[in-house]
């Protein structure tokens, strides 16, 4: 592959911003101006005033006089690789090397609103949309060149920045045809896409442009942004969630480096010229708080869900009837089980940050938000200014996997900049990120099945208790809007957490229903593959339980009930790689003497029943004395349709597996009546290097299919593959996440743990 990217195309020497802005240098000997924010380009502001309407080619793509191509991408790259993959898609349609394409991400003044970044849609929707725009541009360039060269368009081709006659007689550069002007075209959904047998860039593992900077400490994160005259701030969040600020003793920070107090009702912060002084002042400040609504009892979280107010029920899937369960014929066996997934944090390694510069005539906010366009609307409303005066610019933060505290920190910077009349940087602490980021909600699923005398599933029922999301919520309610007394639409955001509560297998009688719970103990937001990690944990664990009841090999049990050939293929690939020997679970061994028990498990998902397909096998070793689970091997095969950049997709597969293993083995948010109590990495441990299993992964390339998304699907089978492997090893079924040693040890000591089988 010749197109190993040069870094030049990605090195910018300043920052697109609302005005003349110099980013202070990081790193010795680099000169006066910092290198790239890879999310933008140095002279991005030359494009101000460009089209932003979602159906216009010019919203996504511009050709400059020198022939260089700039693309404008609303969905941002969170470390996933869309920064290279989308360039590959555009480069394919324009026959232009990706390193000759500049890219601007997530800037409300420059990029069209493609919706927030999420749902595995960065490439599958965002990239596909831009590819269509590029294909439309390609047709337009051919037409213009036909006129210019006096040849039919059919005799012309695009090649490395020019349109040329196929016979070599004449060519004209992109810049000459359209440079500096607009296409004035709507995206043509019928514009032909380049056929896959002529792909030059799609399907190649081109390296990501941001990795060299990230590995050398030269990548500029949001947290590194410094503006002239910027103040550093720390927000003093109340000791009890939602408490009211009664009084603040400003003298308590006198002498701390010139720090001063900013207060808007119960919104309290300290600002200082130097960051360490702001942090010291935040530690020193004395304030009196009262009240707070009071949280429910964490120890009874799932009982409270079951007993709580149900807003309404929603039938997700229904066919046949459940008489096999309600009036089982002779010989029918029934089984039931309840699965629980606790509340968890996004757990970003870098706590959230926000920088804002509120001026009389314009407002600029820099944020790692996954929803810059949503924030633009919210901030315009908060400030009472026209939306066009507010510009929100995405800059990379630490990975966020959904909505972490970024939106809150951005709002806080906005409020403080308005109050002090200078640019302000808000940096959250570790304790704030763990304590205040909106959480992935707790989920509970009850499953029942009837198995007839022939071992067929005569009926399946899923009942899921999930917190209800608020329709048309403009943004996740921001904590400091409440404390500052600024009205906002209250409600809950979760993502589409009901999907995949129904099994993907052939069965005649099925009912899957969600009981939408009216409330949840803490603020929630989408967290990677929202809901579907817990749902698939339940469905695929229960599938394994039925297979075990009927003494059928878990692979065979699934294959018998799958009709989708692509699903069958990923399962067979995993089985082959694992050397899967057909037998029922659990293993038939005498476990009473075993200090370490080993086993294997399998799980399968068709994400949202229409997107990416993943099969996953896992091998574990469980220590009886400690209850510690060691995951020794994970084998996965994924079919996500067209793969733009195989190495980036593989990285997403790795990340999905390891992050969700962490969640399944270790993670649970706890809280007392006032606040979250698991506010650091000691009380909320995550996966560490010594625990990382061997990964054997296969990504299937489907050149003739659309891309289906790689950012989430592979996270969903992890919990069940793990639980099924533990069951195979121990004969004990774990149904409540996380599988911490103390829980596993207790389960091993209980019924079924003594060496059954």
């Amino acid at each position, binding site marked *: 592959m010749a197109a190993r990217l040069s870094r030049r195309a990605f*090195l910018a020497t300043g920052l697109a911003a609302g005005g003349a802005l110099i980013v202070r240098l*990081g790193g*010795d000997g680099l000169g006066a101006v910092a290198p790239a924010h890879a999310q933008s380009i140095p002279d991005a502001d030359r494009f101000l005033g460009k089209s932003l309407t979602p159906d216009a080619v010019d919203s996504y793509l511009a050709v400059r006089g020198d022939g260089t191509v700039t693309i404008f991408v609303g969905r941002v790259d969170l470390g996933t690789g869309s920064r290279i993959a989308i360039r590959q898609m555009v480069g394919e349609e324009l026959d232009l090397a990706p390193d000759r394409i500049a890219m601007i991400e997530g800037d409300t003044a420059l990029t069209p609103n493609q919706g927030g970044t999420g749902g595995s849609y960065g490439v599958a929707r965002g990239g596909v949309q831009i590819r269509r725009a590029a294909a439309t541009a390609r047709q337009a360039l051919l037409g213009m060149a036909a006129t210019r060269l006096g040849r039919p368009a059919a005799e012309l081709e695009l090649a490395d920045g020019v349109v040329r006659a196929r016979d070599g007689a004449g060519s004209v550069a992109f810049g000459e045809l359209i440079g500096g002007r607009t296409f004035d075209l709507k995206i043509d959904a019928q514009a032909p896409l380049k056929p896959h047998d002529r792909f030059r860039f799609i399907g190649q593992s081109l390296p990501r442009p941001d990795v*060299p900077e990230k590995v*050398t*400490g030269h*990548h500029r994160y949001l947290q590194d942004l410094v503006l002239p005259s910027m103040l550093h701030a720390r927000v003093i969040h109340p000791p009890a969630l939602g408490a009211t600020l009664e009084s603040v003793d400003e003298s308590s920070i006198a002498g701390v*480096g010139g720090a001063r107090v900013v207060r808007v009702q119960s919104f309290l912060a300290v600002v200082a010229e130097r*960051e360490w002084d702001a942090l010291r002042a935040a530690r020193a400040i004395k304030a009196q708080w009262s009240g707070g609504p009071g949280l429910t009892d964490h120890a009874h979280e799932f009982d409270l869900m079951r007993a709580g107010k149900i807003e309404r029920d929603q039938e997700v899937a229904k066919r046949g009837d459940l008489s096999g369960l309600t009036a089982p014929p002779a010989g029918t066996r029934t089984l039931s089980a309840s699965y629980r997934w606790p509340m968890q944090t996004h757990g970003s390694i870098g706590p959230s940050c926000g920088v804002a510069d509120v001026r009389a005539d314009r407002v600029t906010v820099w944020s790692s938000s996954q929803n810059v366009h949503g924030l633009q609307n919210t901030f315009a409303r908060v400030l009472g200014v026209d939306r066009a005066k507010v510009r929100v610019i995405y800059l990379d933060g*630490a990975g966020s996997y959904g909505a972490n505290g970024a939106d809150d920190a951005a709002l806080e910077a906005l409020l403080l900049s308005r109050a002090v009349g200078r640019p302000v940087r808000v940096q959250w602490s570790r304790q704030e990120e763990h304590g205040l980021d909106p959480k992935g909600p707790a989920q509970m699923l009850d499953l029942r099945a009837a198995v007839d005398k022939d071992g067929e599933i005569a009926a399946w029922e899923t009942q899921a208790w999930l917190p209800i999301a608020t329709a048309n919520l403009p943004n996740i309610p921001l904590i400091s809007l409440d404390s500052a007394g600024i009205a906002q639409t209250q409600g809950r955001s979760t993502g589409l957490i009901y999907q995949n509560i129904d099994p993907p297998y052939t069965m005649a009688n099925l009912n899957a229903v969600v009981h939408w719970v009216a409330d949840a103990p803490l603020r929630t937001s989408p967290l990677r593959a929202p809901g579907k990690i817990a749902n698939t944990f339940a469905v695929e664990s229960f599938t394994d339980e039925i297979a075990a009841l009927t003494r059928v090999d878990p692979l065979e049990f699934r294959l018998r009930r799958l009709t989708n050939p692509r699903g069958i293929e990923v399962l067979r690939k995993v089985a082959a790689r694992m050397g899967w020997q057909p037998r029922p679970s659990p293993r038939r061994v005498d476990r009473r003497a075993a200090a370490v028990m080993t086993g294997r498990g399998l799980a399968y998902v068709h994400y949202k029943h229409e997107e990416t397909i993943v099969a996953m096998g896992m091998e574990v070793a469980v220590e009886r004395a400690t209850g510690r689970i060691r995951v020794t091997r994970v084998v996965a095969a994924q079919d996500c349709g067209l793969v733009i950049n195989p190495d980036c997709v593989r990285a997403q597969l790795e990340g999905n597996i390891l992050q969700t293993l962490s969640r399944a083995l270790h993670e649970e948010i706890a809280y007392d009546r006032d606040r979250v109590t698991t506010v650091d990495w000691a009380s909320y441990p995550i996966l560490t290097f010594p625990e990382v299993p061997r990964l054997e992964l296969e990504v299937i390339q489907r050149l003739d299919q659309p891309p289906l998304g790689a950012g989430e699907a592979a996270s969903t089978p992890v919990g069940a593959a793990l639980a099924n492997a533990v069951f195979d090893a121990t004969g004990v079924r774990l149904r409540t996440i996380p599988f911490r040693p103390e829980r596993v040890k207790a389960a091993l000591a209980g019924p079924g743990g003594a060496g059954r089988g």
Partner: protein
Amino acid sequence: MAKLTLKVNGTAREVETDDPDTPLLYVLRNDLALTGTHFGCGLAQCGACTVLVDGRAVRSCIAPARSVAGSEVVTIEGLGSPERPDPLQAAFIAEQAAQCGYCTAGMVMSARALLARTPRPTEPQVREALAGNLCRCGSHARVIRAVLRASGRTPGAR
């Protein structure tokens, strides 16, 4: 304001501080504009802020700047640049061993300290040396491969 002289990446740097307990992290990032060292927890739990002090991996978020006066401090910027990465950084690039990359600099520095004392570590030694560096994106397997690659070992087939 007290003056403090630090030797960072081979150069003597003078900074002023009115708090003798100012952690090294804030001096590096805010006074010396070496922002490759990242704030992750302030509790020495995550490793994102790791730098080398006389060759040893140190969590700069809790180490007072004055405690390293007279020592050789090396930050991520002291190893190599995007154009001229040092061999360890080049191995991270070859393995594409970063997603969001926020934790990466700390891992490079921990690995650097390991390779200085154990030039040809085993895979378990690599894992152990990185046990205090947290990653949320799940780049671990690539990071392990990168460190083994930098040590001259051929990482196993993926």
